[in-house]
């Protein structure tokens, strides 16, 4: 099976939706792919049904009316030639021939290993939050959250709103860094208001800076958490632990297409075009910046893809949200203690059960793959590769296709694809 379009958008979060709307409204034939069953990405998860968030509702309604086509449950697995993507969808697959592409693949959480982090009931901070949005039974459950930055408050607010009891919020940043960040928020009044509203809802939750998880303990599932709180130890009992340290962009598709990346972002020009012609990148791929950055960069890329003029206000908004993203990056850097929590038998690679001790003598990710099978399992190093970058300072690797586990049939290029013509944008 094959699809053809002027513009393919990979990812239907705020960045992808904004790009798709702008391009489709300008007359392009737009196809949007997303691994989730509904548009909205992680931040607007479930909003297509609930419609509780006004901003989400506005964009999802605009998207539905834009004429862009949406394929849910669609995961890009390979890019066999310029202008072609191979996509797996449920138990079938198809090829997409595109004129231009907007990559809006968003971000994932940074996990750092600690003893007990593989116990059932230990999840990511946002991982727990999105499951709660998806109907996870959190009412009456005791939850400890540990990590960094605004995601902690956002997750706590969601859990609280669904009847869960947040026992403790452990913020790894120092008090100086945390409050320094908060004091910068006056430049971003919407953020300040959002933060204040969430804090008010959570006023009774014990929150500490300079606090982190040392270990999770329990028989077959998490039952208690050992926390380091300003140098002393606490051990609250809990049903669930959310532990993750900020976000990192999902660079796999961009790297597979050959886009240049810096340490933690895709390199783009002022039209948000990557070093690969006709491929744009938006949102978290440009550095972690949240919904505001995703929307404005999505709009910019959608307009650029449709060769429309860029309104000057959009450029101003972009520069403002970019400043916020830079603040966030400074605040989010994991502290050194977090790199020393794993013991020799703590697993780093969860797919292949690779303990820390197996990495002795490895100098980089490639050696860790070859000698210890780190990152050779189902997630293809998405969890352990990111952790190893933080723990050992190893740089990321090139991505080889398929960038996700795929069936053999999904990797076959349909014979009629190369002869298919699309309208060039």
């Amino acid at each position, binding site marked *: 099976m094959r699809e053809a379009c002027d513009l393919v958008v990979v990812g239907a979060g705020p960045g992808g939706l904004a790009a798709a709307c702008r391009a489709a409204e300008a007359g392009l034939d737009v196809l949007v792919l997303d691994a989730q069953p509904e548009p909205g990405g992680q931040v607007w998860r479930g909003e297509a049904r609930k419609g509780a968030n006004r901003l989400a509702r506005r964009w999802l309604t605009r998207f539905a009316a834009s004429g862009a086509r949406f394929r849910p449950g669609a995961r890009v697995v390979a890019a066999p030639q310029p202008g072609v993507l191979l996509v797996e969808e449920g138990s079938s697959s198809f090829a997409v021939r595109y004129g231009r592409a907007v990559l809006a693949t968003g971000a*994932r959480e940074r996990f750092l290993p600690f003893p007990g982090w*593989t116990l059932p009931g230990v999840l990511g901070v946002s991982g727990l939050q999105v499951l709660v949005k998806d109907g996870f039974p959190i009412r009456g459950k005791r939850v400890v959250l540990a990590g960094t930055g605004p995601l902690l408050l956002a997750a706590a607010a969601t859990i609280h709103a669904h009847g869960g009891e947040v026992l403790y919020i452990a913020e790894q940043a120092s008090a100086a860094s945390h409050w320094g960040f908060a004091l910068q928020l006056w430049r971003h009044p919407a953020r300040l208001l959002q933060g204040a509203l969430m804090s008010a809802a959570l006023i009774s939750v014990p929150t500490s800076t300079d606090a982190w998880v040392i270990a999770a303990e329990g028989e077959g599932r998490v039952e208690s958490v050992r926390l380091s709180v300003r140098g002393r130890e606490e051990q609250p009992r809990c049903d669930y632990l959310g532990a993750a340290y900020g976000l990192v962009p999902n660079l796999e598709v961009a790297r597979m297409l050959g886009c240049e990346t810096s340490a933690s972002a895709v390199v783009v020009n002022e039209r948000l075009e990557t070093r690969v012609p006709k491929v744009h990148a938006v949102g978290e791929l440009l550095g972690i910046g949240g919904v505001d950055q995703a929307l404005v960069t999505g709009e910019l890329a959608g307009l650029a893809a449709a060769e429309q003029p860029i309104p000057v206000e959009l450029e101003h908004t972009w520069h403002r949200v970019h400043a916020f993203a830079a603040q966030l990056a400074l605040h989010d850097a994991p502290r050194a203690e977090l790199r020393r929590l794993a013991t020799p038998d703590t697993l780093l690679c969860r797919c292949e059960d690779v303990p820390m001790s197996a990495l002795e003598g490895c100098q980089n990710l490639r050696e860790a793959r070859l000698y210890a099978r780190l990152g050779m399992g189902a997630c293809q190093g998405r969890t352990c590769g990111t952790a190893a970058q933080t723990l050992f300072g190893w740089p990321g690797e090139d991505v080889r296709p398929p960038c996700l586990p795929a069936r053999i049939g999904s990797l076959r290029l349909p014979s009629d694809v190369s002869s298919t013509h699309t309208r060039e944008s």
Partner: protein
Amino acid sequence: MREPASKATPLVTLRINGRAVTVPVGTSVAAALAMTDRFVSRADLSGRPRGPLCGMGVCFECRATIDGVPEVLMCLTPCREDQEVVTDA
């Protein structure tokens, strides 16, 4: 913030490891797994239990056989009527 109970959400019933679980439409299979007595999706190479981690299709810890298709991610799959979910642990 609580959703009004009067606005009845349609329900679906699926089976997870043979046990019937009834959930509102829109619930993900990973979320429904937490309604069983074990929040366990698979066993690791040593047989120790694992549960979902990332909730968003990144970590692959929640893979299970759904309606006969192996290696499906529960966190990306909405619950459907008569769905058959079999975990690896």
